[in-house]
């Protein structure tokens, strides 16, 4: 077991390094002159341009730039934002918690809805309920979050004259306002996440229900509901956990879109800003942080998977 954990932890490192390299190379390829972006509408002389480039270390060979940058990132220094003129780390500190909270609520909603729907549809298999749940769950995968998000926003405004709060307040400062702000976008993301979870819960439950120990449990005279809740669900949830980890990648992409629609100043809107403002240090930081979150979640999922089901051995 511990060997597996160590091996899994060691695998994390090359992947993380790979991400840093991919991001560094990608961002260097972005066209548009950093100096021009910094200067705004003002014109810059060639001499000034060279001074600024030297200050930013842009005149050194790429390999040197990478090593320097890499060392800084390891120390948690992502450089200075070109646009906001302050350390990128400060921006991350503000934005990461907002997006993480959104993602956490969305995953929770998705798992709760998904498992509930999956169980219902497994118990009532081949009935109208099952059919409806399946149609809904494929809809959840197919409906783009910008469509469901806009629809939800429109309906709330039309029916209840309600619009999301315009001031983002942290959960510590004002839990009520914070939750109201995060709930709609989390629901949109959660709906998308619930769909695959529901489908997987259904199919793995059906698989488990057919197994021997289930027949034994039923033979002992336990009711179908108890059988499913106590015995089947526990075993059926393993693949669901794995899937939920994988869903985080999709959710982080979705965060970009719902944050834009519901005006949440998180990493998603930060990323779009960084792209449009050509704020490379910020852009690199957002992409790296999002990827590391994904890697970490998957690491945790893999580890917990091994803990939950000791039968599993990895070669």
């Amino acid at each position, binding site marked *: 077991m511990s060997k597996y954990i160590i091996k899994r932890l060691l695998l994390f490192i090359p992947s993380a390094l790979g991400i840093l390299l991919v991001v560094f190379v990608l961002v260097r390829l972005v066209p548009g*002159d950093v100096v021009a972006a910094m200067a*705004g509408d003002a014109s810059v002389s060639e001499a000034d341009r060279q001074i600024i480039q030297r200050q930013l270390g842009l005149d050194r060979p790429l390999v040197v730039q990478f090593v320097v940058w890499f060392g800084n990132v390891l120390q948690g220094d992502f450089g200075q934002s070109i646009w*906001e003129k*302050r350390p990128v780390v400060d921006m991350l500190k503000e934005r990461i918690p907002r997006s993480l909270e959104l993602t956490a609520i969305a995953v929770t909603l998705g798992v709760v809805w998904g498992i509930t729907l999956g169980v219902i549809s497994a118990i009532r298999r081949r009935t109208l309920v099952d059919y409806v749940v399946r149609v809904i769950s494929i809809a959840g995968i197919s409906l783009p979050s910008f469509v469901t998000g806009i629809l939800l926003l429109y309906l709330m405004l039309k029916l209840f004259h309600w619009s999301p709060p*315009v001031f983002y307040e942290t959960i510590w400062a004002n839990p009520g306002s914070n939750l109201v702000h995060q709930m709609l976008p989390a629901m949109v993301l959660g709906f998308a996440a619930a769909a695959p979870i529901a489908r997987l819960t259904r199919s793995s439950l059906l698989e488990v229900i057919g197994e021997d120990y289930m027949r034994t449990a039923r033979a002992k005279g336990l009711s179908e509901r108890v059988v499913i809740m106590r015995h089947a669900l526990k075993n059926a949830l393993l693949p669901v956990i794995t899937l939920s980890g994988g869903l985080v990648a999709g959710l982080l992409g979705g965060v970009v879109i719902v944050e834009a629609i519901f005006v949440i100043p998180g990493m998603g809107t930060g990323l779009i800003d960084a792209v449009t403002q050509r704020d490379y240090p910020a852009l690199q930081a957002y992409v790296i942080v999002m990827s590391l979150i994904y890697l970490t979640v998957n690491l945790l999922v893999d580890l917990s998977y091994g803990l939950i089901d000791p039968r599993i051995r990895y070669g």
Partner: protein
Amino acid sequence: MHRLAFDLPNLDIHAQLAAQVSTGLGGIYESLIAQDEENPQVLIPSLAESWKFSQDGKILTFVLRKNVKFHDGSSFDGADAKASLDHALDPKVASPRAGSLTRPFIEKTELVDPYTLVVHLKSPNVAVLQALASRWVAILPVELIEDQAKREQNAIGTGPFILKSYQKNVSMEWVKNTQYWNPQLPYLDGVKFAVIRDESAAQAALASGTLMSGGGGDPENAKVLRAAARGRLVQKIVPGQYPPSILLNPDRPPFDNPKVRKAIFLAVNRQDVGARSRGNIYELGYLHAGIYGEYAIPLEELLKTPGYRQPKDQDILEAKALLKEAGFPTGFNLKVLVRNAAGLPEDSQVVVPQLEKIGVVGELEIVEATAGLARVQSHDYAMAIQGLSQLTTDPGLSMQGAFFTNAFAAWKSPPEIQSLLDQQFAATDPVKRRELLHQIQRYFLQGETGIIHLVWGSTIGLHWDYVKGPIDAGFQGNPYSRVWLDR
């Protein structure tokens, strides 16, 4: 609570460019003189109690207000004023608005005594007062002028409100300055701003009453919002200072031929651009009649001018004939450079299809705003669509900034037109100045400069009816000092 449509990159007002900045810092900083909130053409005292020109019109003397305190408690005097102006004038600072407004006119500043500031002009000029009244030419304490980092992170002014909190990308809050030099102002205890870049989110917040005022976006949306609010949402049309224009590069074929430039000038349907892209609230002409009144060519004359005539049939016929003479009987294809900024992609989606009527088929090349800026500035285009804003309320400054000294157009002003511009700046007689400005406008209306002004797009301001006073002050920002709530 009010909407800020953009966040500020930082708080250094001298380094700012965007019109929204003057809103975000409008109640914090003050200039030597100010524009009246109801009528920006009227100048009123601010940090200077009075001012006067010398006999030859080349020296401008300001008597500064005493007993004014900055928000940090320090006293304001001439050293602050001189340092601020010198900072804006410093070419090394390259201040995009404060500097570009003042640098062309001001030779140097001089402090005679702690409360008398003398400004030496390069030549007699009546427009410099409007430039100095602009919110961008703000007066900061010396300690902020000397410390860039501090200036970017703090706003310490003399204005009616003090910056209480500023959360980047989220909100800004002002509180009443109880030490304000005018004890009657401000009326409000504070002002809150929310940074909402998304138009539909802002509309929803306005409709639900979360926002008291803000931009209403498209007039059609505003109409629906007002109907839903049963008339309690008040609409005000704010004249815009952003003139989207077609720029033709006279150094590149086919636009090296003046006939081709004129053909494009004729074929463009400006009224259609105003209707489809600017929501039918717009003004025509090279000078904004809604702001400059008689300095602008009257609308009746404009509508008889080729290029502005409706219906367009005659213009299109003449344009085709010109293209034929220039050797393009069936038109030509080209790429149109458009920066992704301030409604330009929208304008281009109306204007470019219009040109297909004379066989000119344009392919939009939409470039990200900063990357595009470099290309427009280096005239790396045959045809571009670009705004030529100069945020000022002086007619001469407006024309100069938009058409003579902008970095985007490849057109060079011929000496006789340049001389007209110089003459009108020195003209103390308004009737003579008007005549000179009309001559300059008529020159552009001949349509061969390659600067094809489209429209002045106005914007809609919406506020709830309990908000009273000058609330939508437009591009010059708003100190909110005379706004009050009736409820």
